[in-house]
Protein backbone atom coordinates (compact mmCIF):
# COMPACT_ATOMS: atom_id res chain seq x y z
CA UNK A 1 0.00 0.00 0.00
CA UNK A 2 1.40 3.35 -1.01
CA UNK A 3 1.83 5.96 1.68
CA UNK A 4 -0.04 9.19 1.04
CA UNK A 5 1.57 12.56 1.58
CA UNK A 6 0.44 14.62 4.56
CA UNK A 7 0.59 18.37 5.03
CA UNK A 8 3.42 19.08 7.45
CA UNK A 9 5.89 21.88 8.15
CA UNK A 10 9.27 20.98 6.67
CA UNK A 11 11.11 21.48 10.01
CA UNK A 12 8.71 19.03 11.65
CA UNK A 13 9.18 16.56 8.80
CA UNK A 14 12.95 16.67 9.37
CA UNK A 15 12.37 15.99 13.09
CA UNK A 16 10.03 13.10 12.19
CA UNK A 17 12.78 11.69 9.96
CA UNK A 18 15.24 11.89 12.85
CA UNK A 19 12.71 9.91 14.90
CA UNK A 20 12.28 7.30 12.16
CA UNK A 21 16.07 6.88 12.16
CA UNK A 22 16.09 5.88 15.86
CA UNK A 23 18.56 8.63 16.69
CA UNK A 24 20.34 8.04 20.02
CA UNK A 25 21.44 11.57 20.93
CA UNK A 26 20.20 15.06 20.10
CA UNK A 27 22.29 17.92 21.52
CA UNK A 28 21.02 21.28 20.40
CA UNK A 29 20.48 24.93 21.19
CA UNK A 30 17.53 26.81 19.71
CA UNK A 31 18.14 29.48 17.08
CA UNK A 32 15.84 30.95 14.45
CA UNK A 33 14.91 29.59 11.89
CA UNK A 34 16.04 26.13 12.95
CA UNK A 35 14.13 26.13 16.25
CA UNK A 36 11.11 24.10 15.16
CA UNK A 37 13.29 21.10 14.33
CA UNK A 38 14.81 20.70 17.80
CA UNK A 39 11.63 21.91 19.52
CA UNK A 40 9.68 19.10 17.89
CA UNK A 41 12.45 16.62 18.71
CA UNK A 42 12.32 17.62 22.37
CA UNK A 43 8.57 16.94 22.30
CA UNK A 44 9.10 13.55 20.67
CA UNK A 45 11.65 12.62 23.34
CA UNK A 46 9.49 13.96 26.19
CA UNK A 47 6.46 12.07 24.88
CA UNK A 48 8.44 8.84 24.68
CA UNK A 49 8.07 8.61 20.89
CA UNK A 50 11.83 8.79 20.40
CA UNK A 51 14.09 6.95 22.82
CA UNK A 52 17.01 9.38 22.68
CA UNK A 53 19.14 11.37 25.08
CA UNK A 54 18.18 15.01 24.53
CA UNK A 55 20.92 17.34 25.77
CA UNK A 56 19.70 20.94 26.11
CA UNK A 57 23.15 22.54 26.00
CA UNK A 58 24.08 26.12 26.92
CA UNK A 59 25.49 27.09 23.49
CA UNK A 60 26.09 25.79 19.99
CA UNK A 61 29.77 25.28 20.79
CA UNK A 62 28.66 22.87 23.49
CA UNK A 63 26.07 21.35 21.14
CA UNK A 64 28.72 20.38 18.61
CA UNK A 65 31.15 19.31 21.36
CA UNK A 66 28.47 17.02 22.82
CA UNK A 67 27.69 15.65 19.38
CA UNK A 68 31.34 14.83 18.73
CA UNK A 69 31.52 13.07 22.09
CA UNK A 70 28.36 11.05 21.61
CA UNK A 71 29.20 10.18 18.02
CA UNK A 72 32.70 9.13 19.09
CA UNK A 73 31.03 6.79 21.58
CA UNK A 74 29.13 5.18 18.69
CA UNK A 75 25.76 6.87 19.19
CA UNK A 76 23.63 7.99 16.24
CA UNK A 77 23.77 11.76 16.70
CA UNK A 78 21.76 14.70 15.38
CA UNK A 79 21.79 18.45 15.85
CA UNK A 80 20.50 21.49 14.02
CA UNK A 81 21.47 25.14 13.84
CA UNK A 82 21.48 28.35 11.79
CA UNK A 83 23.66 31.38 11.14
CA UNK A 84 25.37 32.65 14.34
CA UNK A 85 24.77 29.23 15.88
CA UNK A 86 26.85 27.59 13.17
CA UNK A 87 29.42 30.35 13.59
CA UNK A 88 29.65 29.55 17.29
CA UNK A 89 30.10 25.86 16.45
CA UNK A 90 32.93 26.70 14.09
CA UNK A 91 35.82 25.52 16.24
CA UNK A 92 34.23 22.10 16.77
CA UNK A 93 32.92 21.86 13.19
CA UNK A 94 36.49 21.52 11.92
CA UNK A 95 37.25 18.74 14.42
CA UNK A 96 34.35 16.37 13.65
CA UNK A 97 35.51 15.18 10.19
CA UNK A 98 39.09 14.38 11.20
CA UNK A 99 37.81 12.42 14.21
CA UNK A 100 35.45 10.65 11.79
CA UNK A 101 32.30 11.32 13.80
CA UNK A 102 29.25 10.87 11.52
CA UNK A 103 26.99 13.54 13.04
CA UNK A 104 24.01 14.73 11.02
CA UNK A 105 23.57 18.51 11.23
CA UNK A 106 20.51 20.20 9.75
CA UNK A 107 21.24 23.82 8.90
CA UNK A 108 18.21 26.03 8.31
CA UNK A 109 20.30 28.44 6.27
CA UNK A 110 20.25 32.02 7.49
CA UNK A 111 22.34 35.14 6.86
CA UNK A 112 25.32 35.85 9.10
CA UNK A 113 25.60 39.07 11.11
CA UNK A 114 26.34 41.94 10.73
CA UNK A 115 23.89 43.50 10.30
CA UNK A 116 21.80 41.07 12.31
CA UNK A 117 19.26 39.38 10.07
CA UNK A 118 17.23 36.24 10.67
CA UNK A 119 16.31 35.50 7.05
CA UNK A 120 17.59 33.15 4.41
CA UNK A 121 20.79 33.05 2.43
CA UNK A 122 23.77 30.66 2.34
CA UNK A 123 26.41 32.67 4.20
CA UNK A 124 26.29 30.43 7.28
CA UNK A 125 27.17 27.16 5.56
CA UNK A 126 29.75 28.83 3.30
CA UNK A 127 31.66 29.83 6.44
CA UNK A 128 32.38 26.12 7.05
CA UNK A 129 32.77 25.19 3.40
CA UNK A 130 36.33 23.88 3.84
CA UNK A 131 35.88 21.97 7.10
CA UNK A 132 35.60 18.44 5.66
CA UNK A 133 31.86 17.85 6.09
CA UNK A 134 29.70 16.27 3.43
CA UNK A 135 27.15 18.95 2.49
CA UNK A 136 23.84 18.47 0.70
CA UNK A 137 21.19 21.03 -0.22
CA UNK A 138 17.48 20.21 -0.23
CA UNK A 139 15.13 21.85 -2.69
CA UNK A 140 11.77 20.99 -1.11
CA UNK A 141 10.22 19.37 1.92
CA UNK A 142 10.19 15.81 0.62
CA UNK A 143 13.83 16.13 -0.23
CA UNK A 144 14.62 17.53 3.23
CA UNK A 145 13.02 14.47 4.85
CA UNK A 146 14.56 11.96 2.45
CA UNK A 147 18.02 13.53 2.73
CA UNK A 148 17.82 13.41 6.53
CA UNK A 149 17.43 9.64 6.36
CA UNK A 150 20.10 9.32 3.66
CA UNK A 151 22.51 11.57 5.58
CA UNK A 152 22.65 9.06 8.43
CA UNK A 153 23.13 6.21 5.95
CA UNK A 154 25.91 8.05 4.10
CA UNK A 155 27.73 9.44 7.13
CA UNK A 156 27.67 6.19 9.08
CA UNK A 157 28.69 4.06 6.09
CA UNK A 158 31.86 2.08 6.96
CA UNK A 159 33.66 3.57 3.94
CA UNK A 160 32.76 7.12 4.96
CA UNK A 161 32.33 7.81 8.71
CA UNK A 162 32.08 11.57 8.18
CA UNK A 163 29.66 14.23 9.43
CA UNK A 164 26.97 15.47 7.06
CA UNK A 165 25.31 18.88 6.88
CA UNK A 166 21.80 18.93 5.45
CA UNK A 167 21.02 22.43 4.23
CA UNK A 168 17.46 23.66 4.07
CA UNK A 169 16.72 27.29 3.26
CA UNK A 170 15.58 29.09 6.40
CA UNK A 171 11.87 30.07 6.37
CA UNK A 172 11.44 29.69 2.59
CA UNK A 173 11.80 25.96 3.11
CA UNK A 174 12.05 25.27 6.85
CA UNK A 175 8.75 26.97 7.71
CA UNK A 176 6.64 25.94 4.73
CA UNK A 177 3.87 23.42 5.06
CA UNK A 178 4.17 21.02 2.15
CA UNK A 179 2.67 17.67 1.17
CA UNK A 180 5.30 15.20 2.32
CA UNK A 181 5.35 11.42 2.33
CA UNK A 182 6.49 10.14 5.71
CA UNK A 183 7.85 6.66 5.00
CA UNK A 184 6.92 3.61 7.03
CA UNK A 185 9.13 2.90 10.02
CA UNK A 186 9.94 -0.67 8.91
CA UNK A 187 11.18 0.52 5.54
CA UNK A 188 13.44 3.14 7.15
CA UNK A 189 14.79 0.55 9.60
CA UNK A 190 15.51 -1.81 6.71
CA UNK A 191 17.22 0.98 4.75
CA UNK A 192 19.30 2.30 7.64
CA UNK A 193 21.39 -0.38 9.36
CA UNK A 194 22.54 0.10 12.98
CA UNK A 195 25.50 2.44 13.44
CA UNK A 196 28.23 -0.14 13.98
CA UNK A 197 31.93 0.75 14.01
CA UNK A 198 35.22 -0.28 15.57
CA UNK A 199 36.33 3.34 15.61
CA UNK A 200 34.71 4.40 18.85
CA UNK A 201 35.42 5.09 22.47
CA UNK A 202 34.90 1.75 24.15
CA UNK A 203 36.00 0.95 27.71
CA UNK A 204 36.64 -2.66 26.70
CA UNK A 205 38.97 -1.58 23.86
CA UNK A 206 40.29 1.85 24.84
CA UNK A 207 41.68 4.26 22.24
CA UNK A 208 42.70 7.93 22.29
CA UNK A 209 41.26 10.40 19.77
CA UNK A 210 41.62 14.15 19.35
CA UNK A 211 45.38 13.99 19.52
CA UNK A 212 48.09 16.53 18.92
CA UNK A 213 49.70 16.25 15.49
CA UNK A 214 53.17 17.64 15.10
CA UNK A 215 54.53 18.97 11.78
CA UNK A 216 55.55 15.43 10.81
CA UNK A 217 51.95 14.11 10.89
CA UNK A 218 49.52 17.04 10.38
CA UNK A 219 49.72 17.17 6.57
CA UNK A 220 49.14 13.44 6.18
CA UNK A 221 46.11 13.26 8.48
CA UNK A 222 44.52 16.26 6.71
CA UNK A 223 45.15 14.58 3.34
CA UNK A 224 43.77 11.26 4.64
CA UNK A 225 40.55 13.02 5.70
CA UNK A 226 40.24 14.78 2.34
CA UNK A 227 40.78 11.48 0.52
CA UNK A 228 37.88 9.96 2.47
CA UNK A 229 35.66 12.98 1.75
CA UNK A 230 36.42 12.86 -2.00
CA UNK A 231 35.88 9.09 -2.12
CA UNK A 232 32.56 9.44 -0.25
CA UNK A 233 31.00 10.54 -3.54
CA UNK A 234 30.84 6.92 -4.70
CA UNK A 235 29.04 5.89 -1.51
CA UNK A 236 26.61 8.81 -1.87
CA UNK A 237 25.72 7.68 -5.41
CA UNK A 238 25.27 4.14 -4.09
CA UNK A 239 23.03 5.28 -1.21
CA UNK A 240 20.92 7.43 -3.57
CA UNK A 241 20.42 4.34 -5.76
CA UNK A 242 19.49 2.17 -2.76
CA UNK A 243 17.05 4.85 -1.64
CA UNK A 244 15.36 4.82 -5.02
CA UNK A 245 15.03 1.05 -4.83
CA UNK A 246 13.51 1.21 -1.35
CA UNK A 247 11.32 4.33 -1.62
CA UNK A 248 10.95 5.02 -5.34
CA UNK A 249 12.27 8.59 -5.29
CA UNK A 250 15.31 9.33 -7.45
CA UNK A 251 18.20 11.49 -6.31
CA UNK A 252 21.31 12.55 -8.22
CA UNK A 253 24.34 14.56 -7.19
CA UNK A 254 23.42 17.15 -9.81
CA UNK A 255 19.91 17.58 -11.23
CA UNK A 256 19.10 19.00 -14.63
CA UNK A 257 15.91 20.64 -15.92
CA UNK A 258 15.29 21.32 -19.62
CA UNK A 259 19.01 21.39 -20.37
CA UNK A 260 19.05 19.08 -23.45
CA UNK A 261 19.26 21.94 -25.96
CA UNK A 262 19.85 24.78 -23.51
CA UNK A 263 22.31 27.47 -24.52
CA UNK A 264 22.12 29.31 -21.22
CA UNK A 265 22.12 27.32 -18.00
CA UNK A 266 21.12 28.70 -14.63
CA UNK A 267 23.16 26.95 -11.95
CA UNK A 268 21.43 26.91 -8.56
CA UNK A 269 21.49 25.36 -5.08
CA UNK A 270 18.58 24.97 -2.69
CA UNK A 271 14.94 26.01 -2.80
CA UNK A 272 15.29 28.86 -5.32
CA UNK A 273 15.75 26.14 -7.92
CA UNK A 274 11.96 25.71 -7.99
CA UNK A 275 11.50 29.39 -8.80
CA UNK A 276 14.26 29.06 -11.43
CA UNK A 277 12.44 26.13 -13.08
CA UNK A 278 9.20 28.10 -13.24
CA UNK A 279 11.09 31.04 -14.76
CA UNK A 280 12.68 28.65 -17.27
CA UNK A 281 9.24 27.35 -18.28
CA UNK A 282 8.10 30.92 -18.93
CA UNK A 283 11.27 31.81 -20.84
CA UNK A 284 10.99 28.62 -22.89
CA UNK A 285 7.49 29.71 -23.94
CA UNK A 286 9.05 32.95 -25.12
CA UNK A 287 11.57 30.97 -27.17
CA UNK A 288 14.64 31.22 -24.93
CA UNK A 289 16.86 28.11 -24.85
CA UNK A 290 17.41 28.02 -21.11
CA UNK A 291 17.64 25.29 -18.50
CA UNK A 292 18.52 24.72 -14.84
CA UNK A 293 21.32 22.69 -13.32
CA UNK A 294 20.99 22.26 -9.59
CA UNK A 295 23.78 21.16 -7.29
CA UNK A 296 22.45 18.84 -4.59
CA UNK A 297 25.85 17.68 -3.36
CA UNK A 298 27.99 20.69 -2.48
CA UNK A 299 30.79 18.78 -0.72
CA UNK A 300 32.49 16.73 -1.99
CA UNK A 301 32.10 18.92 -5.08
CA UNK A 302 30.66 16.77 -7.91
CA UNK A 303 33.30 17.73 -10.49
CA UNK A 304 32.64 15.08 -13.17
CA UNK A 305 28.85 15.23 -12.86
CA UNK A 306 28.80 19.00 -13.10
CA UNK A 307 31.16 19.02 -16.08
CA UNK A 308 28.84 16.56 -17.84
CA UNK A 309 25.75 18.63 -17.00
CA UNK A 310 27.34 21.81 -18.36
CA UNK A 311 29.06 20.19 -21.36
CA UNK A 312 26.73 21.47 -24.05
CA UNK A 313 26.00 24.94 -22.68
CA UNK A 314 27.35 28.11 -24.28
CA UNK A 315 26.81 30.17 -21.16
CA UNK A 316 26.47 29.28 -17.49
CA UNK A 317 24.96 31.73 -15.03
CA UNK A 318 26.00 30.65 -11.54
CA UNK A 319 23.68 31.89 -8.82
CA UNK A 320 25.15 32.46 -5.36
CA UNK A 321 23.38 33.23 -2.11
CA UNK A 322 26.48 34.51 -0.36
CA UNK A 323 28.94 37.33 -0.94
CA UNK A 324 32.60 36.54 -0.74
CA UNK A 325 33.91 39.88 0.41
CA UNK A 326 37.12 41.06 -1.19
CA UNK A 327 36.78 39.16 -4.46
CA UNK A 328 34.33 39.65 -7.35
CA UNK A 329 32.79 36.15 -7.20
CA UNK A 330 30.45 34.05 -5.13
CA UNK A 331 31.59 30.72 -3.64
CA UNK A 332 29.79 28.53 -6.19
CA UNK A 333 30.93 30.84 -8.99
CA UNK A 334 34.55 30.42 -7.93
CA UNK A 335 34.15 26.65 -7.87
CA UNK A 336 32.58 26.50 -11.33
CA UNK A 337 35.17 28.82 -12.88
CA UNK A 338 37.98 26.76 -11.44
CA UNK A 339 36.30 23.58 -12.71
CA UNK A 340 36.04 24.91 -16.26
CA UNK A 341 39.32 26.81 -16.46
CA UNK A 342 41.40 25.50 -19.33
CA UNK A 343 38.70 23.02 -20.41
CA UNK A 344 38.28 22.83 -24.19
CA UNK A 345 35.12 24.60 -25.45
CA UNK A 346 34.36 25.77 -21.93
CA UNK A 347 31.18 27.84 -21.66
CA UNK A 348 31.32 31.47 -20.59
CA UNK A 349 30.68 31.74 -16.87
CA UNK A 350 28.73 34.60 -15.34
CA UNK A 351 28.24 34.80 -11.60
CA UNK A 352 25.32 36.46 -9.83
CA UNK A 353 24.64 37.00 -6.16
CA UNK A 354 21.04 37.42 -5.08
CA UNK A 355 18.59 36.73 -2.31
CA UNK A 356 20.83 37.94 0.51
CA UNK A 357 19.38 38.26 3.99
CA UNK A 358 15.98 36.99 2.87
CA UNK A 359 15.45 39.36 -0.07
CA UNK A 360 12.82 37.79 -2.31
CA UNK A 361 14.11 35.78 -5.27
CA UNK A 362 11.62 36.29 -8.07
CA UNK A 363 11.09 34.70 -11.47
CA UNK A 364 11.91 38.10 -12.97
CA UNK A 365 15.38 37.91 -11.34
CA UNK A 366 16.19 34.83 -13.41
CA UNK A 367 14.96 36.59 -16.54
CA UNK A 368 17.22 39.54 -15.72
CA UNK A 369 20.10 37.12 -15.26
CA UNK A 370 19.48 35.42 -18.60
CA UNK A 371 19.34 38.82 -20.33
CA UNK A 372 22.61 39.92 -18.67
CA UNK A 373 24.32 36.62 -19.52
CA UNK A 374 23.89 37.28 -23.21
CA UNK A 375 26.41 40.07 -22.88
CA UNK A 376 29.94 39.27 -23.96
CA UNK A 377 31.36 41.81 -21.58
CA UNK A 378 33.62 39.95 -19.16
CA UNK A 379 33.79 43.13 -17.08
CA UNK A 380 30.14 42.46 -16.27
CA UNK A 381 30.61 38.79 -15.46
CA UNK A 382 29.87 39.35 -11.77
CA UNK A 383 26.90 41.21 -10.41
CA UNK A 384 24.77 41.51 -7.29
CA UNK A 385 21.31 41.29 -8.77
CA UNK A 386 18.88 43.90 -7.52
CA UNK A 387 21.37 45.86 -5.43
CA UNK A 388 20.06 49.44 -5.19
CA UNK A 389 22.93 51.87 -5.84
Amino acid at each position, binding site marked *: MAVKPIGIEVSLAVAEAVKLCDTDVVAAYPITPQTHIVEHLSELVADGELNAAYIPVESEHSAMSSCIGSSAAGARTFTATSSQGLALMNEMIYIAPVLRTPIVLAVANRALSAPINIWNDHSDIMSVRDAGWIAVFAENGQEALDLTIMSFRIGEHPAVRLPVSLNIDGFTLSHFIEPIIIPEKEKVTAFLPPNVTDLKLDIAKPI*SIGLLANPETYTEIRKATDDILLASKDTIVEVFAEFKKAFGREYNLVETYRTEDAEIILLTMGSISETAMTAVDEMREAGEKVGVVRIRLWRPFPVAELKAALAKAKTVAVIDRHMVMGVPNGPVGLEVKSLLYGAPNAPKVFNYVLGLGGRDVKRSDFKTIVARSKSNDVQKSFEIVGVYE
Partner: protein
Amino acid sequence: MMADKPDALLKVKDMPAGFQAKAGSTVEFKTGDWRSSRPVLDREKCIYCGFCYIYCPDGVYQDQGPEEKWYKADLDFCKGCGVCANECPKKCIEMVLEEV
Protein backbone atom coordinates in the same frame (compact mmCIF):
# COMPACT_ATOMS: atom_id res chain seq x y z
CA MET B 1 54.80 15.27 -4.37
CA MET B 2 57.11 13.24 -2.19
CA ALA B 3 60.41 14.69 -1.08
CA ASP B 4 63.53 12.48 -1.36
CA LYS B 5 63.83 12.39 2.39
CA PRO B 6 60.35 12.64 3.86
CA ASP B 7 59.61 15.11 6.65
CA ALA B 8 56.65 12.92 7.54
CA LEU B 9 56.36 10.13 10.08
CA LEU B 10 53.63 8.11 8.36
CA LYS B 11 52.27 7.86 4.84
CA VAL B 12 48.72 9.09 4.20
CA LYS B 13 47.53 5.51 3.64
CA ASP B 14 49.05 4.37 6.93
CA MET B 15 47.30 7.04 9.01
CA PRO B 16 44.99 5.37 11.53
CA ALA B 17 41.30 6.22 10.92
CA GLY B 18 40.27 9.25 12.94
CA PHE B 19 43.93 9.78 13.90
CA GLN B 20 43.41 7.44 16.84
CA ALA B 21 46.11 6.01 19.04
CA LYS B 22 46.16 3.30 21.65
CA ALA B 23 45.05 4.56 25.05
CA GLY B 24 47.75 5.86 27.36
CA SER B 25 50.26 6.55 24.61
CA THR B 26 51.16 9.88 26.23
CA VAL B 27 53.34 7.90 28.65
CA GLU B 28 55.58 7.02 25.71
CA PHE B 29 55.73 10.58 24.42
CA LYS B 30 58.55 12.05 26.45
CA THR B 31 58.30 15.82 26.57
CA GLY B 32 61.23 16.47 28.92
CA ASP B 33 63.49 17.54 26.06
CA TRP B 34 61.33 20.65 25.54
CA ARG B 35 62.87 21.97 28.79
CA SER B 36 65.39 24.79 28.92
CA SER B 37 65.94 24.60 32.68
CA ARG B 38 65.29 21.92 35.28
CA PRO B 39 64.12 22.11 38.91
CA VAL B 40 66.75 21.13 41.46
CA LEU B 41 65.52 20.62 45.04
CA ASP B 42 67.52 21.46 48.15
CA ARG B 43 66.29 18.68 50.44
CA GLU B 44 67.89 20.33 53.50
CA LYS B 45 65.40 23.24 53.29
CA CYS B 46 62.40 21.22 51.98
CA ILE B 47 59.53 20.88 54.52
CA TYR B 48 57.57 18.31 52.45
CA CYS B 49 54.59 20.67 52.13
CA GLY B 50 53.59 19.34 48.69
CA PHE B 51 53.15 22.74 46.99
CA CYS B 52 55.34 21.61 44.05
CA TYR B 53 53.24 18.44 43.69
CA ILE B 54 49.97 20.41 43.79
CA TYR B 55 50.98 23.31 41.55
CA CYS B 56 52.86 21.38 38.85
CA PRO B 57 50.69 21.80 35.70
CA ASP B 58 52.02 18.58 34.21
CA GLY B 59 51.83 16.38 37.32
CA VAL B 60 55.46 15.34 37.10
CA TYR B 61 56.11 15.39 40.86
CA GLN B 62 55.97 12.01 42.57
CA ASP B 63 55.51 11.61 46.33
CA GLN B 64 58.46 9.72 47.78
CA GLY B 65 56.46 8.83 50.92
CA PRO B 66 56.41 9.67 54.64
CA GLU B 67 59.81 8.08 55.26
CA GLU B 68 61.69 9.90 52.49
CA LYS B 69 59.58 13.07 52.84
CA TRP B 70 60.12 14.71 49.46
CA TYR B 71 58.66 14.99 45.97
CA LYS B 72 60.71 13.99 42.97
CA ALA B 73 60.28 15.60 39.51
CA ASP B 74 60.09 13.11 36.65
CA LEU B 75 62.47 14.76 34.20
CA ASP B 76 61.16 12.66 31.29
CA PHE B 77 58.08 14.89 31.38
CA CYS B 78 59.04 18.11 33.24
CA LYS B 79 58.91 20.97 30.69
CA GLY B 80 60.82 23.33 32.98
CA CYS B 81 58.09 25.93 33.43
CA GLY B 82 59.33 26.85 36.92
CA VAL B 83 55.89 27.05 38.56
CA CYS B 84 57.14 24.77 41.37
CA ALA B 85 60.14 27.01 42.08
CA ASN B 86 57.90 30.07 42.08
CA GLU B 87 55.33 28.57 44.45
CA CYS B 88 57.74 26.84 46.87
CA PRO B 89 57.24 28.64 50.23
CA LYS B 90 60.80 27.78 51.35
CA LYS B 91 62.38 28.73 48.02
CA CYS B 92 64.26 25.46 48.02
CA ILE B 93 63.73 24.68 44.29
CA GLU B 94 66.24 26.26 41.93
CA MET B 95 65.77 26.30 38.16
CA VAL B 96 69.10 25.31 36.65
CA LEU B 97 69.80 25.96 32.96
CA GLU B 98 70.06 22.81 30.84
CA GLU B 99 73.39 23.06 29.02
CA VAL B 100 74.07 21.04 25.91
